[in-house]
């Protein structure tokens, strides 16, 4: 069944879109990630213009993170002040990202820039996660001692603030920076940025793992909502019909994924996730390196 997307101006198969949303939802339910890093490249692959894919990807992430953050609220696993600081940084980063996106579009380098960002961040995070989880599997005799307080450069910076839920007394500058970085990626890559933020919160800010997911989801909800609005207003590239189809598929997939996820061990999950992240990064890197079939590309200039 074909469906004509009003903003993307392409006709796509409804079941392909529902399936795409379903697969990404399944993975996000299983691994607890938003899945934006998968949905945006996949949309581009099926012929959706990259601008629409990025903006609509952000819209889809709003839906998948809102239900997540509500569940975390009930468990009191959200650090509100930390979420506010991360969001403030995120809004600044997203605005800057939108500006860079425009600049790169004008220069004709936006696709390259998006692809390089994907290779760099997915490669880095996927690689780190893989090494870390392989090490964790080897240390299955549980000799690891959890250090609750690591004093690093993060603790020596000014403008300190108390984050009760996280049990931290640190400068607001590092969380602002992390938030800004994630906001920037959200605007450029159409992702929530959880895959960058979660490791940064644990290793850089030293936040306890139990509040990391909820707090990052809070930030992602606000920042991707803001990104969606920015893209809608400046580029008119949010496709509501496309987003809705992806959300419906995603919601169903996420429930199935969550059930499968419970049966797997945490280390196995993380190895699988890291392999998937590396696979996406590898595919995009290959596209950049391999000689393309068509050296030329045509872009419509908007009046």
């Amino acid at each position, binding site marked *: *069944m*074909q*469906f*004509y997307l*009003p*903003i993307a*101006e*392409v*006709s796509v198969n409804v079941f392909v879109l529902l399936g795409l949303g379903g697969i990404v939802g399944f993975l996000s339910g299983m691994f607890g990630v938003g899945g934006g890093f998968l949905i945006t490249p996949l949309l581009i692959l099926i012929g959706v213009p990259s601008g629409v894919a990025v903006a609509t990807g952000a*819209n*889809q992430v*709003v*839906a*998948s*993170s*809102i*239900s997540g953050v*509500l*569940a975390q609220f009930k468990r009191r696993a959200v650090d509100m002040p930390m979420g506010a600081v991360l969001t403030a940084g995120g809004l600044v980063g997203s605005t800057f990202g939108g500006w860079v996106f425009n600049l790169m579009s004008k220069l*004709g*380098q936006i*696709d*390259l820039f998006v692809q390089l960002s994907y290779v760099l961040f997915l490669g880095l995070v996927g690689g780190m996660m893989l090494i870390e989880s392989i090490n964790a599997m080897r240390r299955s005799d549980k000799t690891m001692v959890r250090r609750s307080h690591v004093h690093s450069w993060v603790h020596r910076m000014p403008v300190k603030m108390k984050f009760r839920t996280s049990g931290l007394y640190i400068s607001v500058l590092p969380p602002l920076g992390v938030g800004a970085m994630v906001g920037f990626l959200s605007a450029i890559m159409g992702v929530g940025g959880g895959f960058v933020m979660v490791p940064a919160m644990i290793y850089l800010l030293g936040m306890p793992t139990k509040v990391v997911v909820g707090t990052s989801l809070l930030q992602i909800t606000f920042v991707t*909502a803001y990104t*969606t*609005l920015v*893209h*809608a*207003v*400046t580029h*008119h590239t*949010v496709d*509501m*019909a496309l*987003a*809705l189809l992806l*959300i*419906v598929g995603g*919601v169903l997939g*996420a*429930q199935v994924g969550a059930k499968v996820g419970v049966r797997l061990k945490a280390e196995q999950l993380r190895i699988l996730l890291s392999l998937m992240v590396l696979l996406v990064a590898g595919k995009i890197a290959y596209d*950049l*390196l391999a*000689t*393309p079939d*068509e*050296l*030329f*590309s*045509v*872009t*419509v*200039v908007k*009046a």
Partner: protein
Amino acid sequence: MIRILAALLLMALPLRAEEIVSGVSQTGVSITTSFDGAAILIYGAAIRDAPAPDGPLMEVIITVEGPETPLVIRKKERVAGIWVNRGAVKIASAPSYYAVATTGDLTDILKPAEDEKYHISVAQKIQASGVAVADQADYLAALQRIKVASGSYKLARETVLLLRQALFRTDVTLPANLVEGTYKVRIFLTRGGMVVDQQDSQIEVRKEGIERTLYRLAMDQPLEYGILSLALALLAGLAASELFRRLRL
């Protein structure tokens, strides 16, 4: 007075000797949610005051063109191992859709000078702007190649069916990735490579129903549209978690 009229008549006669009468199967195309391209039948006949002249046979060229837009063609080059857009050629205007259907090979039935005058072949429809690059021809060829591959340009030889040197018809398929706007249909009659008569008509391509509502909202009230998109996402997210919470009970 009579002499002037007679002179005018004499001047007009060769042009009026053969005239096109034509129609299109639909003058409007609605893009609805289930839109997956459209097939349009263009038909007509040549009406003559006198028997068909001797000499070269009548040929028919039918073109359909979508709204014109400026374009940029970019070329990738290998820089430090990766493929990067380097060169670019700006095109002042190129049709978003262009189909040429003919009764024969375009080079046989149309003289280059006539092509230049009426802008019939794709090469004549595309106009580059700015300073010409050394390998401009490569860029223009690439534009045609890409547009043909995506189904936006169709150069179909011998797809116009001509009966008894008078009746003609052709089917033009409009692809699913259609741009809104006024599509111009031109029909040319040629003899010996010269255009004898031309007739134009139009097909209006419009988004309809929910497609139109959403598109207009996104363009005219982007903030409201953005907020609505978010509200919808919010609602869908909430409804989903609520639904599955209940299902688990």
